[in-house]
C-alpha cells in the first residue's frame, strides 16, 4: 500500500513540473525573468536629437507658479545728468542707527606748542621693563696716565673736485680732528673740527681758489687731553682746464 501511494505522489509531482515547464516563457541568459505575467512587451529606447536641440534653445527664465499677477520691468541706465550729480557727491563717513554723532575739526598745534615739542630732546623710550639703568662713560684719565702726544703720519692732500681738496692723516692713538688752513703761511682761518675720536682722519675743503696755494696744520687731542699740532704743510689747488668742443 505504501509503495502504491509513493508511486502516485511521484506521478503528481512529475505532472506539476511538466505543466510549469510548458507555461513558462522562453528566457535566455541575462534576461529579465518574468513569472505569471499575462503579456510581455519589449521596446528599444532611442535618443531624440531634435528634442535635445529644442531644449538647449530654451533661454533661462524666471519660472513662476501659482502667482496671481506678474509684471516684468526693465532697468535702465540713469540719465547722464543724474550720473554727473552722483559724481559730484563728496565722499563722507556714512553711519546708521547711531544715537548721536559729533564731528570735530583737528587744528594745527599752536606755534608755541610746536616750538616746545621741537625742544624735546630725543631719548630712548621703553615701557613695562622692570628696571633700567643709564650710565655715563668717564674716561679714566688718571688710571691711564697717558702723557704722550698723538703722533701724525700719512698727512696728504688730494684733489676731490674743482676747488675741492681732501686732507687726510692718521694718528697712532684715538684723537679728535682739527684742521687749520689759509692762503698765507702761518696764518690760518677758522679751524674745522670734529670732536669724535678717530685714528684715520679726513677733512674735505670746498670753495677753494683754483690755482692758489694753501697752507695747513693738523691738530689732535687724545682722550687724556694731550694736544699735538703738526708742522705746516701746503697744497696747490688744481686749475680746471676747459677745452672747447666744436661740432662740425
Amino acid at each position, binding site marked *: 500500500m505504501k509503495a502504491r501511494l509513493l508511486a502516485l505522489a511521484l506521478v503528481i509531482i512529475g505532472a506539476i513540473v511538466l505543466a510549469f515547464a510548458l507555461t513558462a516563457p522562453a528566457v535566455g541568459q541575462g534576461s529579465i525573468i518574468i513569472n505569471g505575467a499575462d503579456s510581455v512587451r519589449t521596446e528599444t529606447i532611442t535618443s531624440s536629437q531634435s528634442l535635445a536641440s529644442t531644449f538647449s534653445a530654451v533661454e533661462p527664465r524666471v519660472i513662476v507658479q501659482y502667482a496671481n499677477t506678474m509684471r516684468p520691468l526693465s532697468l535702465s541706465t540713469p540719465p547722464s545728468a543724474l550720473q554727473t550729480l552722483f559724481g559730484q557727491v563728496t565722499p563722507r563717513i556714512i553711519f546708521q542707527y547711531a544715537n548721536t554723532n559729533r564731528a570735530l575739526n583737528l587744528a594745527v598745534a599752536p606755534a608755541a606748542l610746536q616750538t616746545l615739542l621741537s625742544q624735546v630732546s*630725543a*631719548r*630712548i*623710550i*621703553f*615701557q*613695562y*621693563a*622692570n*628696571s*633700567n*639703568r*643709564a*650710565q*655715563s*662713560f*668717564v*674716561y*679714566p684719565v*688718571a*688710571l691711564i696716565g697717558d702723557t704722550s702726544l698723538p703722533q701724525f703720519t700719512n698727512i696728504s692732500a688730494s684733489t676731490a673736485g674743482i676747488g675741492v681738496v681732501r686732507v687726510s692723516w692718521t694718528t697712532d692713538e*684715538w684723537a679728535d680732528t682739527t684742521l687749520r688752513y689759509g692762503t698765507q703761511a702761518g696764518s690760518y682761518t677758522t679751524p674745522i673740527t670734529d670732536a*669724535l*675720536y678717530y685714528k684715520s682722519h679726513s677733512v674735505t675743503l670746498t670753495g677753494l681758489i683754483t690755482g692758489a696755494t694753501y697752507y695747513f696744520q693738523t691738530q689732535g687731542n687724545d*682722550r687724556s687731553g694731550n694736544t699735538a699740532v703738526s708742522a705746516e704743510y701746503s697744497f696747490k689747488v688744481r686749475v680746471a682746464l676747459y677745452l672747447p668742443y666744436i661740432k662740425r
Partner: protein
Amino acid sequence: VKSLYRTIETQTSQYIIGSIPVQNYLESDDVHVYVHVDGWVLAYYLKADPTGKIFDWKSYTGGATIPTKLEKILSDVASAVGAPAPTITFYHFQYPNASNMMLIAEDTANGNDFTVQLPSSYAYYERSWSIRSCCGVEFQLDGTTVGNDIGGGYGTLSASQLAPDVTHTIAVNGNGCLALIYRVP
C-alpha cells in the same frame, strides 16, 4: 688681594692682573681685574664679550637696581683690602666715542616683556643681551627667539634687528637684560 684671584696673568711689585671668580657663577664668567698699588682697581671683560655679560642676573631681584658682576668684584676687592665702598665709573675702551650705557632688565614679575624704541639721532655702537643661563630661558625680540641659555646666555643684536625709530618688544621668561652702548649727540 692675591687670594681672590683664580688665575694671575701678570704680577709685578706695582700691579697684578688676573681673573677673579664671581660667586655662584661659572669660570667663564670670571672677571678680569687689574689692581695697582696706587689704589686703582679696574674690572673688565675682554672685548670679545658683549656688554650684556656684565649683567648680574643672580643678584637681580627686579627692583630699581640693576647689579653688574664688575661692581660685585670691585666691591669684593675693596673689602679684601679694607677700603671703603669705591666710587665706580664706567668706560668702554672699544668705543671711544660712546658716551652712555643703558641696561634695561626684566624679571618674571609683572609680565615677561617690555618695549623699547631707540631714537635715530643717537649713534649706537653695541646692542647686546644677557639672560639667566639655565632652565630653558629664552631672549625673544619681536616674537623671534634670538638667544637662549645654551652657550653662556648672552649675545649681540645687529643694527637691523634693533632698528631705531621702531617699537620693539623684548620678552624674557626669566631674568634678562638688554644692554645699549651709544652716543647722545
